[in-house]
């Protein structure tokens, strides 16, 4: 039986065991302040989702890669010093299934048969991911329409869900199983309850049709559709959607130096900025908002599914829906993509 129960009065001990020998990250704070952070107080089970997606743990906005300096008295004078992957053994509690799915999409970008990104790999492979299922999805949630589920398991080691008097757990991997056993959770049978709750939570979300239609359409048909200029017109060109997206993974490597040395770092980049595609020659293959906005939606809903066996680049977390200052709602754009003719 891979299911376990932690009673309410045993929760504090449970979290203490999780933190043993690891860094334990869990959602702290409420509303827009809810973030994954090192646990210092009681762990909240009652939050819609973290403000930023958990990709920040594995792929921070700025990551220092190497340093160099020009001072002759330093041991690494004139030699590049690798700053490592900044990884440490970590347990994250409370990743929502949509975000776990997002992490697994990014994981295929950073670790596949062609490339391995050491900075991502170190952190990803040393982290045990405990998900928290959504009993009551928020109005902006549409994970089921994106092929996920409020009880989705992809990318997780353990799936937890709040029960009236405690926490239900379903272990999904060997690492997860060991961790939960060590935390002395009681084995129990929750399979039927899980199924019922999942059905209820999915029913609370919107329809699925548009995305299936998009799947059937050819790339060029979607690409050449005439709605793109109108879709992009209200876009402000800020990077909010990409920064908050759990699957956006584009970065830019920059060097900064002063008279004594310098640093190489990689920073989040955003395809919403004209600078993202600007060539050294001055040519820009995506010169206007229209091309940039189209790229983002095509990437999420068409290109990634093709590359990743049907797994979509959007996981339905709804962050961009809420955050976009111009209210460009990916659900409406998907509907347009499904309807529009080339």
């Amino acid at each position: 039986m891979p299911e376990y129960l932690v009673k309410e009065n045993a929760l504090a001990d449970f979290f203490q065991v999780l933190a043993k020998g690891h860094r334990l990250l869990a959602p702290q704070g409420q509303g827009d302040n809810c973030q994954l952070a090192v646990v210092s107080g009681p762990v909240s089970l009652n939050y819609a989702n973290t403000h930023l997606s958990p990709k920040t743990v594995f792929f921070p906005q700025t990551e220092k890669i190497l340093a160099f300096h020009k001072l002759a008295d330093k041991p690494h004078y004139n030699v590049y010093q690798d700053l490592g992957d900044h990884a440490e053994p970590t347990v994250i509690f409370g990743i929502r299934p949509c975000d776990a799915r997002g992490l697994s999409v990014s994981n295929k970008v950073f670790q596949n048969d062609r490339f391995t990104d050491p900075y991502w790999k170190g952190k990803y492979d040393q982290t045990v991911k405990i998900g928290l299922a959504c009993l009551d999805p928020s109005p902006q949630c549409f994970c089921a329409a994106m092929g996920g589920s409020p009880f989705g398991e992809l990318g997780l080691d353990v799936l937890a869900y709040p029960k009236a008097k405690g926490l239900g757990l379903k272990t999904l991997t060997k690492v997860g199983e060991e961790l939960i056993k060590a935390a002395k959770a009681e084995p129990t049978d929750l399979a039927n309850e899980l199924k019922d709750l999942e059905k209820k939570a999915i029913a609370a979300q919107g329809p699925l049709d548009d995305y299936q239609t998009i799947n059937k359409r050819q790339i060029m048909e979607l690409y050449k559709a005439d709605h793109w200029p109108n879709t992009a017109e209200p876009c402000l060109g800020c990077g909010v959607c990409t920064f908050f997206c759990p699957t956006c993974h584009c970065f830019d490597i920059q060097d900064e130096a002063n008279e004594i040395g310098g640093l190489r770092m990689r920073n989040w980049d955003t395809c919403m900025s004209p600078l993202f595609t600007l060539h050294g020659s001055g040519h820009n293959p995506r010169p206007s908002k229209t091309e940039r906005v189209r790229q983002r939606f095509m990437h999420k809903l068409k290109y990634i599914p093709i590359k990743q066996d049907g797994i979509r680049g959007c996981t339905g977390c709804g962050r961009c829906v809420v955050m976009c200052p111009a209210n460009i709602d990916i659900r409406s754009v998907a509907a347009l993509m499904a309807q529009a003719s080339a």
Partner: protein
Amino acid sequence: MGNLETITQKIRDKAKNLLSSGQAEVVIGYRQGTIPLVAAPFFARKAEDCDKLVWSSFARLNLANYLPSRKGKVALVAKGCDARSAVGQVTENQFPRENLYILGVPCSGLVDPALVAAKEPRPIREAKETDDAITISGQDFSLDIKKEEVLRRNCRTCSHRTPTLSDELTGPEVPSLQPDDFSDIKDLLAKTPAERLVYFKDLIKDCLRCYACRNACPLCYCPICFVDETRPQWLGKSNDPMDTLTFHLLRGLHCAGRCTACGACETACPVNIKVREFNRVLDRSVQENWSYEPGLAWEQKPPLTVYQPNDPAEFIK
């Protein structure tokens, strides 16, 4: 019929009129948002689009932002602050007056969703409004909130609620509030310099440098922003706090004397930074030194493009 419905109807009727008579090729207004407490920018080009136009106290973006470098005749739905921004665009030669029709909306202040969330943290599935209250509801709850309790900070100090210059008003004038006395930054100015530096560094600590504040701002129309310049590169691309502070200081300086306090920057900010704090400090200086308010006249020149031989500057030795 409440005032909001009357204004909405007026906007729709007028928009159809303007489009069919050729006075405008596009009407830039607001539509109902796809999530509660939001009205989104909407571009109406055909008569049937016009019925999607709405007026609501959730219309927080400044649509004058869409004017620069736009071709053709435009009708702009504009509240007091937005109309002043549009006038500013004209005076700064960013949009020709003859192509602009300002459909002015007398505005009694817009709702700040963060203040609503502070009153009701549970997920809101629907929001309805009357002239002076909103009703929010979600699973198992419904709550009436008076609008004046959840108005945005800039709306509470707004001294030009009715557009000062417009081609037509869509409703009765709204009485203006007291002239802005900058009382909201009084506490800040009373702090010691060291405390203020800590305050400002703390203010922007969550900044992601997404530049939504810049992009939502009708004043920020430079083809290449200083943050995007690469030769020289003025700002690093990391989330270094000093780079971030420099961005906010320079953004503030570039807007000095031009800002109409529309609050679009704070609306757009995804991490709820009070970015207008920088503008407030500067606007106060502008008012003290030159008693200037932007967007009140078509021929007005922004204060940094002109000078007086006797400008006060005792600090210059």
